[in-house]
């Protein structure tokens, strides 16, 4: 049996004012795309940087490809590619020069020009990095992660701030990496859609703790409801008003609005309107959608994923 691509046990990393990672256990299998999901400040970046060997944990075991950072740092660096959250590549170098520089650090890897072609950057080969668009820069960052022909790819918020088109292009690159060489991917994101589209399994973290783990479908199933109704009324309904409705699995405050997790929209929507009328209130807004990981996060923490 081959060892897991990444495993960590009881990982802890405390900073002066915050417990960034507080007893985290994770196992990522080889060939898997694993997503770390959580709001800003949940400890995602600290976790991924510990796994990348860039931050030393206060305690806990980390093994990557069966090796430890202490004993096999160079070997591990040869076999992994990373994209950090805030790296700004040298603006005065061209796309090709940047990739060429990174290629020189690795024993093996593709020709920079071949990689530029694969990432649709060949037209920008001789353009300075400073002149690239956000999406192009991000693709170059990922190209730098791929230029050493890695077995594992670490991507820290690879698509934050990108337009939808660039995001799709990047997802394509990740999919190719998995198809072509069966590589393992660990990524952090706060985009639910991204996690649902890319990841085989997802760990939701908050305040340095793991609060849910599973396939996207499993996690959504945990909501025990397939649909969400969101409404506001004047005056506002009390917290218990809809909780006892048949087919309703919970009611939670979401900003100004109440959120109900329900099985069937057709049955629940008339009942909700009925309750509002019985309370002598006036319905202001009402919307519905299929349950997503976003809703799971709200139901688990009572907070939104993207707030701050």
């Amino acid at each position: 049996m081959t060892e897991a691509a990444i495993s960590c046990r009881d990982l802890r990393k405390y900073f002066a004012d915050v417990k960034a990672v507080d007893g985290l256990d994770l196992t990522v299998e080889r060939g898997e795309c694993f997503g770390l999901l959580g709001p800003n400040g949940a400890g995602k970046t600290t976790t991924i940087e510990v796994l990348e060997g860039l931050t030393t944990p206060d305690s806990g075991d980390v093994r990557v490809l069966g090796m430890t950072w202490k004993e096999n740092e160079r070997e591990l660096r040869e076999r992994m590619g990373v994209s950090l959250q805030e790296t700004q590549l040298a603006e005065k170098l061209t796309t090709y020069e940047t990739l060429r520089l990174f290629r020189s650090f690795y024993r093996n890897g593709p020709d920079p020009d071949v990689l530029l072609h694969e990432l649709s950057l060949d037209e920008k080969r001789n353009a300075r990095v400073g002149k690239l668009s956000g999406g192009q820069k991000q693709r170059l960052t990922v190209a730098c992660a791929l230029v050493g022909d890695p077995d594992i790819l670490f991507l820290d918020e690879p698509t934050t701030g990108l337009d939808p088109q660039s995001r799709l292009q990047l997802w394509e690159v990740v999919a190719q990496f998995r198809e072509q060489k069966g590589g393992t991917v660990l990524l952090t994101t706060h985009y639910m859609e991204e996690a649902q589209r890319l990841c085989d399994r997802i760990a939701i973290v908050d305040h340095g703790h793991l609060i849910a783990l599973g396939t996207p479908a499993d996690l959504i199933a945990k909501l025990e409801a397939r649909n969400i109704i969101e409404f506001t009324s004047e005056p506002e309904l009390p917290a218990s008003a809809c909780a006892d409705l048949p087919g309703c699995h919970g009611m939670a405050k979401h900003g100004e609005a109440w959120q109900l997790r329900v099985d069937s929209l057709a049955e629940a929507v008339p009942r909700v309107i009925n309750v509002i009328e019985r309370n002598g209130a006036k319905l202001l807004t009402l919307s519905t959608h299929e349950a997503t990981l976003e809703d799971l996060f709200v139901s688990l923490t009572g907070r939104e994923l993207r707030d701050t």
Partner: protein
Amino acid sequence: MTPSKIGPPIIELARARTKEFLRETEAIFWVFGFPLLLALVLGFAFRDKAPDRVPVGIAAGPMAQQRLDALKKSNALQPRIVTDGDDALRHGRISLLVSGDAALKYQFDPTRPDALTARSAVDDALQRAAGRRDPLAPSQAFVHEQGARYIDFLLPGLLGMNLMGTGMWGTGFVIVNARMKKLLKRFIATPMRKRDYVLSHFLSRIVFLVLEVGVLVAFGWLVFGVRVNGAVGTLALLCIVGGFAFSGLGLLTASRARTIEAASGLMNLIMMPMWLCSGVFFSYERFPDAVKPMIKALPLTLLNDALRGVMNDAMTLAQIGPKMLWLVVWGLVTFTAGVKIFRWQ
């Protein structure tokens, strides 16, 4: 699109660094333009010329006109009759005041060198006009030796100052910038060896050294006729050693700083004493004896002395050897310490 062979990391890092620099227009000015401008301005400001005539005043009075005629014969003086003699003297408009009535009197501040020159010239002129005959008639020989002009002194100093500035800024600024942009962190996430990164800075420095030293020396020679009296090879080696010492100092200065501001402050703190004390614009011989050993141990003093040795006094490698050795020590110590405490992220 010819695929060229990719070299080892240290070469690729130095190559990338060099390209980046050559694309940085402002940096080009500070490295090449600024020292040339400085050499040009100072070279002309201090070019050799006859000393100015000393202004002296004659107080109004019965003897004033006669004394004025006598003083006009001296080519060291610029005499005129003044009505506000005391005031002119106090404000330095004249260096000496001669009385205008029968009793001859000189009024001057004996601590001022120009006043002493005036005293002697005025007295000579008046005594001769009054009929004094000098018993001795010495002949005079005027010396204008090349290599003894101010520009000959200045140019090696500017060269040293430039090597310091570019060495420290060129290394320090780039490192702090890369740290701020998290590029250093990205580099250490690759198998790149930290040693290669640090040494690549020195390597790319050598490329610029050839350019900046070449430009300044050629300029001095073409515009002011400043010669390199010693061996050019010795000068080249000395510049490389100097560049090494200051790259090391730049690395050490930048090894911890998190912001450009912090690094700039530290750089200026380190460079300022050397600008002032290490004999860039004037000889450090003017400083008290007690601090001279300290001044002489500063890397810029070592470099400037050695540069003047080679350029002005045609010293050999063996003669400047000890100073070069000390520069190597400065470089090694600062490089080692800098790498040791280096903050990668």
